[in-house]
């Protein structure tokens, strides 16, 4: 994949949703093509090289999953984000986990969509070899699994460390609650309680209390973002 390649194919049959997707993606510096049905999606997907393809499950002609499978069969390895309005993620979509692609349920927030598209677009370039991650004055030692700020150790439970690591790896990007649940706990459902907030709250207290500046920020209605002041 070409570095800085920001070309996205959006497969969506609902005009309004497609328009909103194009708008929010273009505002964030992506070039967007839209396909309104499965066959258009196939011909576009085969003819151009995209960074990410987003596919709606319910298309007028072919099921979104089938579109993705046909693309894969013809050697297209572009990451695919499946968007499903079928309430619950079904097993076929869950099966995608292994293939490295992602899914999102409708309705979604555009911030979350962007976060996921961003993560997929980056996927192939991010082979992290470091053993220490740094954001501002926060240091994460991936070998000893310890965290510290300004040299002072922060005591974290293993799962808390994992959560912080995920936030640090996505530094400056919004991470939704569902993404946290998915990547930290390997759970694939939307929590019906505020449990993630409570959990992140505790990590935040451990990381940010009595420090020069906060690192973990709440993004209203979506999730969290870890960033150091510029």
């Amino acid at each position, binding site marked *: 994949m070409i570095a800085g390649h920001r070309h996205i194919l959006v497969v969506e049959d609902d005009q309004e949703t497609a328009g909103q997707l194009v708008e929010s993606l273009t505002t964030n510096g992506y070039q967007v093509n839209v396909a309104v049905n499965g066959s258009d999606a196939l011909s576009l997907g085969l003819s151009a090289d995209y960074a990410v393809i987003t596919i709606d499950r319910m298309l007028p002609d072919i099921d979104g999953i089938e579109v993705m499978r046909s693309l894969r069969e013809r050697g297209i390895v572009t990451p695919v984000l499946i968007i499903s309005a079928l309430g*619950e993620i079904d*097993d076929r979509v869950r099966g995608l986990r292994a293939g490295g692609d992602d899914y999102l349920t409708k309705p979604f927030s555009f911030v979350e969509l962007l976060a996921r598209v961003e993560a997929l677009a980056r996927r192939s370039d991010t082979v992290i070899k470091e053993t220490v991650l740094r954001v501002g004055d926060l240091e994460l030692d991936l070998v000893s699994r310890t965290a510290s700020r300004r040299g002072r150790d922060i005591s974290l439970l293993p799962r808390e460390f994992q959560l912080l690591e995920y936030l640090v790896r996505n530094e400056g990007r919004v991470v939704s609650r569902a993404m946290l649940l998915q990547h930290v706990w390997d759970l694939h*459902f939307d929590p*019906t309680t505020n449990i993630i907030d409570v959990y992140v709250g505790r990590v935040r207290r451990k990381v940010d209390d009595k420090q020069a500046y906060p690192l973990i920020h709440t993004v209203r209605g979506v999730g969290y973002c870890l960033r150091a002041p510029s």
Partner: protein
Amino acid sequence: MALGIASVHLAKTLRSSTFKLALIAIGIFGAIVLTLFSYVYLSTAYYVRGRSDSALTAEQAILQRTYDRAGRGGLIAIIQQRISDEHFQNSLYLLADPSYSFIAGNLKVWPSDLGGSEGWQNFHVQGWKADAAHQPMLRAALKTLSNGDHLLVGKDIDDLDAFTGKIKAAFIFVIALIFLLAGVASVLVTRRTVGRIEAINTTSRAIMQSGLDKRIPLRGTNDEWDRVAENLNSMLDCIETLMREVKQVTDNVAHDLRTPLARMRGRLEKAYHCRRDSEEDQALIGDTIANLDGVLRIFSSITRIAQIEAKAQRVAFRTVNIAEITRETVELYDAAAEEKGTHLSFVGDQRVCVTGDRDLIFDAVANLVDNAIKHGRAGGHVTVEVVESSDGDAIISVADDGPGIPAAEHLNVFKRFYRLERSRRTAGNGLGLSLVAAVARLHGAHIEMLDNLPGLKLRLVFPPNLVSLSQTVMQATNGGQQITKI
């Protein structure tokens, strides 16, 4: 009118498949009986005729021997003797000269239609017995003696004919009676069947037209029809209960969704009429999005429960360690417990496996723990335990020391959107336990609600899972042991 109804009934009876089956059965049975009776009749008739013929042959032989020994005179003497003997009153003798003129015997004239014939003959003779009202059937053996005389030895076989005739009549009567009774019986049986089916049909039509409150009447005979009716009735009960629950859920959904939507609408309407103020607008939009997210969460909870109940996810079942899943859940809720000052602890085995779906079990346990923290005593204890019981059940139990749930409410709390009066004001949508119940049902597990004195103890009991069960069965077959619990 009554005639009309009767003819409609009859038409229904005749069209019924039961009646057609009965007719086929009658046909087959009738053919068998007919064959059997014909065989009995024919062999009886043959036997009787054979007996009579051999007696005649013997008599003819005696007369032949007398003739051989004593000539025509001796023969006449023995014929005279026979005629006067009462034992031979049904016997027929005639000795005629070569020109068929009478010589001796109780038959006065050589029957005209037997002229010149030999061997066995059946014939009638006018007035051979004075008292005979009709001409009886006679049978005779004819023979020409060596001097040209003709000898006729015969018998009145009318009695034999009457005997076989009686048998024939009896058989015909019995067969007719069998057919008649079978016909009547099949009509009655068909009537009864058609009647019961008609009752079921009538009820079904009534249900389609006016609602689910109708039931098929029972006759109290405890027969298979009553059992069918009972089962259909209990099926209707189930459907009615489900319908009522669906309606209840719909009402609750309407209520729970309308409240936040009405709130949002009000807020937006008010803002619409006010002047734009970017800071206030921002807050308003943020709140509205949060409220909408709440509504969407209720939606996805409902579809999630529906999907679990439709067993759509069983394909994703694999062997999972519920001890690990539960420990992770407890770990996740550690922060929430800390916030409320609750002591949350996990005890029990390290490895307890069941066949199931990790996400669903996690979600169910999370709901139980969430409830225990939320409804338990602030600063109290919540203990989560996973054990494998001695009889192979895998048990997850979550216990708190809060106010508990009154025994009368135990079943209600599993209903969708059901909330105890005192919980109306705490966060939640009343879907948690119905999700737990749905997950439990999908896994073949059951939920036990116990009094923790004080507090509530909820137990999710998974029966021994299928994988380990099949292993047990194999071991048992190999070792010849008995399995006591499945």
